């Protein structure tokens, strides 16, 4: 029983983990992206569509990365070079992603593909087998997390990227191309978010359903605050939510007396609760939030 819970938690947490990692990279550079929900859907549909026509999961995942990154670059260009309001542009991206995938994905509804299979390494060892018998995308997400952490805190480019998010004026003075770094962060981050979407349509279900991300993108935006902009803590947050989301589904399947809709609202309720707890915990001095998050950079605004 416990093994099953661990297993479903990891599987349900992984798409949220990808989305949260992607969102953290963008926010580290100073760009808020409320388009995560839309990007996940674009990743989910493009992954499914290209796997369906080519029969190759690899091409599906690559298409998900590329097309989400392309869609994300709209937000990237608007919020850097064109100095647009990040909140409006992000909402536009979510609307665009929700609508365009519903429109173009209509022919994919009800189609089947062979989803990604698990690796069977060990048999029937409590606690270990649900951890070791996952699919490869689960391990890639953990590897990616470590890689991104290393990149942000141990490389020069990572340091530059964080500087751009903290103080773009200082970064500009030091000869760092602020807009280019931000655009780069948004494009890379969007690609990773797209992988989270593709995980839903290629591994978790595997199906294409209109609006299948069902708010996971918004939960990821909230988890960025919960994890205090630290990708390592994003792992805890994502699995916590994976656990709640997946196990409310199990409760539904077991046929409890609690109404379905109440169970379905649990992930959202818990996200709000978690936001409240993280704001109680982090007083402003300990907060890791990038100093210039949400502010467009304009050289001429320098004081």
């Amino acid at each position: 029983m416990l093994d099953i819970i661990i297993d479903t938690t990891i599987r349900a947490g992984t798409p949220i983990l990808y989305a949260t990692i992607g969102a953290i990279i963008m926010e580290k550079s100073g760009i808020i992206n409320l388009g995560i929900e839309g990007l996940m859907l674009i990743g989910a549909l493009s992954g499914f569509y290209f796997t369906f026509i080519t029969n190759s999961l690899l091409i599906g995942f690559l298409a998900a990365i590329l097309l989400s990154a392309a869609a994300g670059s709209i937000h990237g260009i608007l919020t850097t070079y064109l100095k647009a309001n990040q909140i409006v542009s992000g909402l536009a991206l979510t609307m665009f992603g929700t609508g365009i995938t519903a429109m173009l994905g209509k022919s994919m509804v009800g189609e089947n593909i062979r989803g990604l299979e698990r690796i069977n390494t060990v048999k029937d060892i409590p606690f270990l087998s649900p951890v070791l018998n996952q699919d490869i995308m689960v391990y890639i997400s953990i590897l990616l997390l470590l890689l991104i952490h290393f990149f942000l805190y141990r490389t020069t480019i990572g340091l530059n990227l964080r500087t751009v998010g903290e103080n773009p004026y200082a970064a500009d003075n030091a000869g760092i191309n602020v807009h280019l770094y931000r655009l780069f962060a948004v494009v890379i981050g969007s690609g990773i978010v797209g992988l989270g979407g593709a995980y839903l349509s290629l591994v978790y279900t595997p199906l294409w359903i209109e609006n299948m991300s069902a708010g996971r993108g918004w939960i990821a935006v909230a988890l960025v605050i919960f994890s205090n902009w630290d990708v390592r803590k994003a792992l805890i947050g994502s699995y916590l939510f994976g656990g709640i989301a997946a196990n409310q589904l199990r409760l539904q399947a077991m046929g409890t007396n609690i109404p379905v809709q109440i169970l379905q609202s649990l992930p959202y309720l818990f996200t709000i609760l978690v936001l409240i707890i993280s704001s109680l915990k982090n007083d402003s001095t300990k907060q890791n939030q990038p100093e210039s998050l949400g502010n467009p950079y304009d050289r001429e605004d320098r004081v």
Partner: protein
Amino acid sequence: MIRIEKRISNSQNLKSLAKFFSFVIGILISLFFLKFLGIGLIDLIKNIYYDAFGSIYSFTELLIKMVPLLICSIGVSFAFKMKLWNIGSEGQLYIGALASSLIAIYIPLNSHYLMIFLMFLAAFIAGGLWSGLAGFLKVKLNVNEIIVTLLMNYIAILIVDYLVYGPLKDPEGFNFPYSKKFTDIAKLSTFGDTRLHTGIVLAIFLLILYYILMEKSVWGYEVRVIGSNPNAARYAGININKNILIIMILSGGVSALAGFTEVSGVLHRLQHSISPGYGYTAIIIAWLSNQNSIGILFSSLFMALIFLAGDTLQLNYQIPISMVNAFQGILLFTLLTGDFFINHKITMKRRKNA
């Protein structure tokens, strides 16, 4: 050498021209997508024109769609004036619809006016408390209002779903997810033979109220100061926290009234999926119109036209209604780009000889 400079001042003509061009480009891109789906554009435009302006009746149908958009965008605009991002208008609409329906179903009254008044009041209070919660969290704990109001949308919709699939389901409704129909006492009256209901009067009244409060009163000025320069506001002795709370309650309460007019004026019952995203569109309208009352009116009418086009596409071409979202996204992208050209000028300069 190409140089980008901020415009010191920008003329009204230029603004209008840039907005207009952005609109046209956004619509062209959207039409391109439809063309890609194999839709004959000339026919489509004819159909949409006929559905919106073909007769007085069809124009009133357009106005029916405008009412919830107008009310929600007034609600959102209250918050945006203070740079508070209430993006929970959709959920607030659902909560308002729920509160009004509960009154209509459970309170036996014989007076039409009393009934309508109570439904109105219930919607406003319920919506105000609902979004006031987000305001409270913002004031007391500095919890991000964007994410809280958005997540509360999902919760509000699920609460309504729970009720219409469960306790409120009409026993004679063939298992459809809706409550039983309201009695005539709980229905807003309509104009002539059309379906246009008196909710439009409420919407216009709210717009006038918004104009007076936000654009003419001292309090409106204070709210704008808090939005544009919180430090100056604090210096001037304006109580910011109190105003955040008031604005959030007002913003949610007004949005909830759209739920009231929808159930009492159009649907005459509580049901699954009351709104095709009016609350989200209201965010666009509030931004697009720069929270200016006349702008809100015309932007709402324009967005109503887009929803009507969505209906036409769904009925005649089997395109899902959520494609309205795609068009709105594209329009926002082109308008944001247009904004750049409003605020900046690009000049070509010869490099001076060194």
